[in-house]
């Protein structure tokens, strides 16, 4: 099967499953460093065990012109026409915290899925896959450090 088709199938499952099976809200909290720049653009998204894009959890920063600086997300999610539907907000200032909630199917947990965050800020370098957190029960509540912009990121399963 071709890769895009697989991706679409996976996406369809992930999105359809919550309606059929159990799902739970996942809260993602990202605390930004004082990196000394303008508000950061962030894209939080889910990839599967093979590194294929599943769905977008949140995009902070509304100007499409700058979305290419979130380069991994931008490339991986290119086939997802609805990637921005209902999951966008303002860019996140240095030192501030982003807190978003998404409904995730139980089946995604402990199944090799990863939460990834791409980050970028004006005049500074892009940081694709700034942080990658495996979506496992064991990781829940454990802060993880990012490379450049993110002080720590934590997800909570409810």
């Amino acid at each position: 099967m071709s890769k895009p088709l697989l991706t679409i199938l996976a996406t369809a499952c992930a999105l359809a499953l919550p309606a059929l099976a159990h799902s739970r809200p996942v809260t993602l909290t990202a605390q930004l460093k004082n990196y000394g720049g303008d508000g950061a653009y962030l894209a939080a998204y889910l990839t599967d065990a093979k590194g294929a894009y599943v769905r977008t959890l949140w995009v902070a920063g509304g100007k499409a012109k700058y979305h290419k600086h979130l380069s991994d997300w931008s490339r991986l999610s290119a086939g997802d026409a609805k990637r921005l539907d209902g999951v966008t907000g303002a860019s996140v200032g240095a030192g501030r915290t982003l807190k978003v909630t998404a409904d995730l199917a139980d089946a995604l947990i402990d199944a090799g899925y990863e939460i990834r965050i791409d980050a970028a800020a004006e005049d500074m370098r892009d940081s694709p896959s700034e942080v990658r957190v495996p979506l496992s029960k064991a990781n829940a509540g454990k802060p993880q450090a990012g490379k450049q912009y993110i002080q720590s990121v934590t997800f909570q399963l409810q």
Partner: protein
Amino acid sequence: MSWKAIHRWLGLTIGTLAVVLGVTGAILAIDPVQQAWQAPAAPGDLAVAPLVERVTRTVPGAEEIRHLPSGAIVVFSFAGDQPQASYVDPVDGRVLGAWQASALPRWVKNLHRSLLLGDAGRWGAAGIALAMGLVCVSALVLLLRRMGGWQRLAARVRGSLAQRIHVVAGRVVLAVLFLTSLTALTMSASTLGLVALDTRTEPEVLSVVTGKPALPGAQLATLQSLAVQDLRKLNFPGATDPEDTWKVATAQGQGWIDRYSGQMLAWQDATFAQRAYDLAVVLHTGEAAWPWAVVLGLVGASVLLFWLSGVVIWWQARRQAPHITGNTPLAQADVLIFVASEGGSTWGFAQTLQDALSQCGHRVHTSALENFRTTAATRQVFVLAATYGEGQAPAHASHALEHIARLNASAVPVTVLGFGDRQFPAFCAFAEALDQTLRAQGWPTLLPVECIHQQSGQQFAQWGVALAQALGEPLVLAHVPRVPPTAKLTLMARQDYPGATGQATAILRFAWPAQGLGARLRGHGLARFAAGDLVGIVPPGSAVPRYYSLASGWEDGFLEICVRQMPGGLCSTHLLGLQTGDSITAFIRSNPGFALPRTRRPVLLIGAGTGVAPLAGFIRRNDRRTPMHLYFGGRDPARDFYFGPEIQRWLGEGRLATLQTVFSRVPDGGGYVQDALRRDAERVRSLVAQGAIVRVCGGRAMAQGVAETLDVVLAPLQLNVAKLKAKERYAEDVF
């Protein structure tokens, strides 16, 4: 809406915000200048491959190389967990120091592009840029109108200080300011999402793991053939991802290179929109060339200058705006007065005329010229018309001529009175054009067209006498112009002459009251002046100032005039009666058309009688020893050779190159000054052929005689006085 209205109201309202953008823009221009000093630019012939080799050697963990628009090389890396950005010397890969995108606080840039108001502010800033573009376009239209076309764009600017600042600075920076507005709009269009720069997604390409080791960057053929000066950005493949690729970005586009084979896996050309945007950024920020950033900084700061001078110009015009009192409704009026005024002073004359006619029992209606019409009740029409620039109508009456040409004439006499300045080549041209149109249409007139020079109240009163006779009514036109703030001047010294025909004459020297800067900015006290400017003196018992040409500049430390007793003259009697220590009240009126520009060209000065005064002032200040040649005409060397001893001294000092004197009332005196010019025709022609500037000062008959003589003398050069005037090489100060 007229261009003038657009320019004025956009400038006064949105211009206030544009000042914020201009000043912050000027501050932001510091960055490119400062960065230019921080790191050397990459040499033009250096290829990317050796640069990669040097960088990998000196910067462990390098992830990205950026070639900044300034030419400097910046390398991004990680030192442990710490992201680093360093300037690198492209020649040897040496790390020069840390790089920062800007040395300025971020709020400066955010104030500049969004007024610190987020997205709403970005729309606002784009609106300001659009308004500035419109202000620039309207400015060009007004500038061309004022100067009289493209050919005369570089000509000397006349007007008040604020007008001169506004126009001279505008001439210099208009194009850059317009470019800045356009580039700002280009940048806004993509930031606000109105234009998509590149809707394509990046191709999904991976390095193909073959088991062979990855190639070092220096061995990639693409990087060997790519010059650093074409490079924008080079991203190294990630150390932990074996399928990652090299990514190279140039002005032309971006490509992905396999880390094992060195093959270009994919290439995307930059879109047209992206290239246009990149060009706009470089032009708007000056980041590619610091001298351009300096230009942009100065232009940004000039917005403040334009706004301030613009506000002053608007305020001055507002103060002179028409306030006609006692206006009768049009339908009931038997006398109509129509006014075309540029600065507003002509309305003052209209008010005087209206008051005088009303006192004679007329019902008078005064209106702007564009409203020209007659009614059944109309018995007389007067048109008071000022001329603007090269013979144009004042802006508000720009279509009046065509309007009048379309009307059918009636039997009501229409009398035209022009206002202008003889120093302009097209003195009262608009009034004359109006008069011709009216006559061609068949309107009768009460009096032939008359032109008032420099708002002369005396000349206006004389016209009033003629009008009173024509109407058969006891009409008196006593125009009281608004007198600017005056200062007190104390007589230091006087030098008396018996005068040529028994009329006493004296050179009066007053102390110049030096002003502090604060007083000058507030417009208090006496303005600075130069020889050739005019001093307005209000004699006791009169409200009408008399003007005298100044024989000194403020730099001389005194104010000197030459006053001849006029029969029954209120002001000359007052002045000639002054003793040392007595004082007068006076103000300065600049006479920029007559003042001498800084020049190396020869200067031909022609004066008669007291008319030598401003010319003496020019010679006195000729510290640069410009070759000045004086033709002086008097009547009797024993009686009216004004400034005689000084002129002889200046001749010795080289301030005056040559002197020709003629005296009309002594045997073998040489006749009049025009006779001397005719005798010296060869020499005068040679001076004018060398580009000489000519200044003539004296009575009207003398000035006319000189002009006629010079027309004859200069004919072999295919030149005449009118042509010299048009080139601003010939000016008269006539009394």
